[in-house]
């Protein structure tokens, strides 16, 4: 279980990893101290391993900076739940083995106790005693997540996930 940190719509990667900390991109532990600083200043100091980020629409919009996903994961975030994700950010999450889950986040409140069962497609809200279901990941996404992301996948297999039918 982890607690829900609620965010609004359209959280940008500039708010997650601000341009004024550009010089810390090769010093990720330092950059992580400023994670999401321009969206919620108290997040970086308050987040605990296993917590969940709960966004609205279009989470992670804007720049392609993968550092945004890496520092969210570094502080121990279990998963990001949102109504929708910006596409580059979504790929970056999967490539880093961080579940990006599309679910109706209006039903989750700040501070709720959450858990997730990826292979059953369920988010459980222990505070509200409800379960929210989410659609299964596409095969290629599920495979990358299961293997811990794209770096781990390539280290293990030396190639992208393919089958005779194409991808995964």
């Amino acid at each position, binding site marked *: 279980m982890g607690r829900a940190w609620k965010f609004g719509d359209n959280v940008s990667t500039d708010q997650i990893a601000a341009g*004024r900390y550009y010089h810390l991109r090769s010093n990720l532990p330092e950059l992580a101290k400023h994670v999401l600083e321009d969206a919620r200043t108290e997040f970086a100091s308050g987040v605990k391993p296993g917590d969940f980020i709960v966004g609205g629409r279009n989470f992670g919009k804007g720049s392609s900076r*993968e550092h945004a996903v890496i520092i969210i994961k570094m502080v121990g975030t279990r998963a990001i739940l949102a109504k*929708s994700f910006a596409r580059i950010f979504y790929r970056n999450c999967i490539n880093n083995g961080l579940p990006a889950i599309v679910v109706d986040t209006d039903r989750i409140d700040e501070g709720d106790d959450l858990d997730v069962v990826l292979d059953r497609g369920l988010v459980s809200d222990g505070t509200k005693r409800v379960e929210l279901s989410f659609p299964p990941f596409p095969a290629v996404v599920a495979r990358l997540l299961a293997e811990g992301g794209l770096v781990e996948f390539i280290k293990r297999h030396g190639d992208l996930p393919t089958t005779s039918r194409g991808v995964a």
Partner: protein
Amino acid sequence: MSGQTLAERILSDTLGRPMRAGDIAIVPVDLAYVQDGTGPLTFRQMELMGLRKAANPGRTIAFIDHASPAPRKELATDQVYLREFSREYGIVLSDVGGGVCHQVAFESFVRPGDVVVGADSHTVMGGAMAAFATGMGSTDVAVAIGLGKTWLRVPETTRFEVDGAFPKRVYSKDLILKVLGDIGSDGATYKAMEWSGPAIEAMPMSERMVLTNMAVEAGAKCGLIASDSETARYLGSVGREADWTPLAADPDASYGGVRDIDVSAVEPMIARPPQEDNVVPVTDPSVLGLRVDEVYLGSCTNARFEDIAVFCGILKGNEVAKGTRLFVTPASRDVWDKCLRAGLFNVLLDAGAVINSPGCGACPGVHGGIPGDGEVVLSTTNRNYTGRMGNPNASVYLASPATAAVAAIYGEVVDPRDVP
């Protein structure tokens, strides 16, 4: 079976088999690039994955454009790594002062029909060349560089059919801001935005590039425009006649949606903070007369020779308003050179402008014009998110070079149609 959209056509031609929206495929990559903010991570990921060489080194580029020249030792040290890695892998290096990755790639590398991946979201600009160009994160681009391929889902396409003539002092920046205001900053998420119609056919390349550049501001995977006689003219102008091939969607292609736009009804537009879809006409009381501390003419969106020429055409003979700063950052060395030869720098310097070396400058908030607390910036760039230009306590408004020029003269937002 219906015909193909431009996105489907490019990916089908690349793979040699028919591809339809929704298909997922592994696709060879014709051009891959990184910049100094994303490149160090890309190259470290390659080393971690054991990708010891680039599949296509001559078509792989490391650009140093975001911190150019480096304002801090950490960034200068990142650039040392980029140079060493580029040398070791034999990949192309575009060093400090060369210009913004998307502009330089467009001038010298992107070809019609190419699949282009860049570790920068505005890679989509390459779609003005009828290339399937899309931004990805560092790890995806690391794999694309090392293996020469990537996986992607063929996007559904929304077609923007544009007719009419642009009114005085209205540009493609105003058109894209209008569209962003209409469809929202996630209005094209995962999709391709394909631009067509008489107004697009008549549009010069420099203006087309604005439309495809800001496709990502609607969440799109790519922005696309057919390769036509204007594409041929442009390629000729940069000495690449041989790279031209015609490429267009089929007339009976199947679109996820079609939006008709009469551009003669579009006004000069401004996007208010904190995002690019918070758009109003320049005459809106929330922006008209707004005092401006800084005017910024720069970025891959609007800092080409043609943009600076429009800006100078309005500015010429005037001085920048007292209390307002004007920063100009040409998009590339080639743009710089053209401006210099055309005498545009004299116009800017006489007016009191500060001219920065080619690159991304203040747009991503690294250096070159970061605003102070409480200040208002009118910028020709593409994003106005909280903190975007380096200060979360400043406000960034987005507009065309023409609207920026009149703001520089008057020190406030003025309707550019009211100015001679």
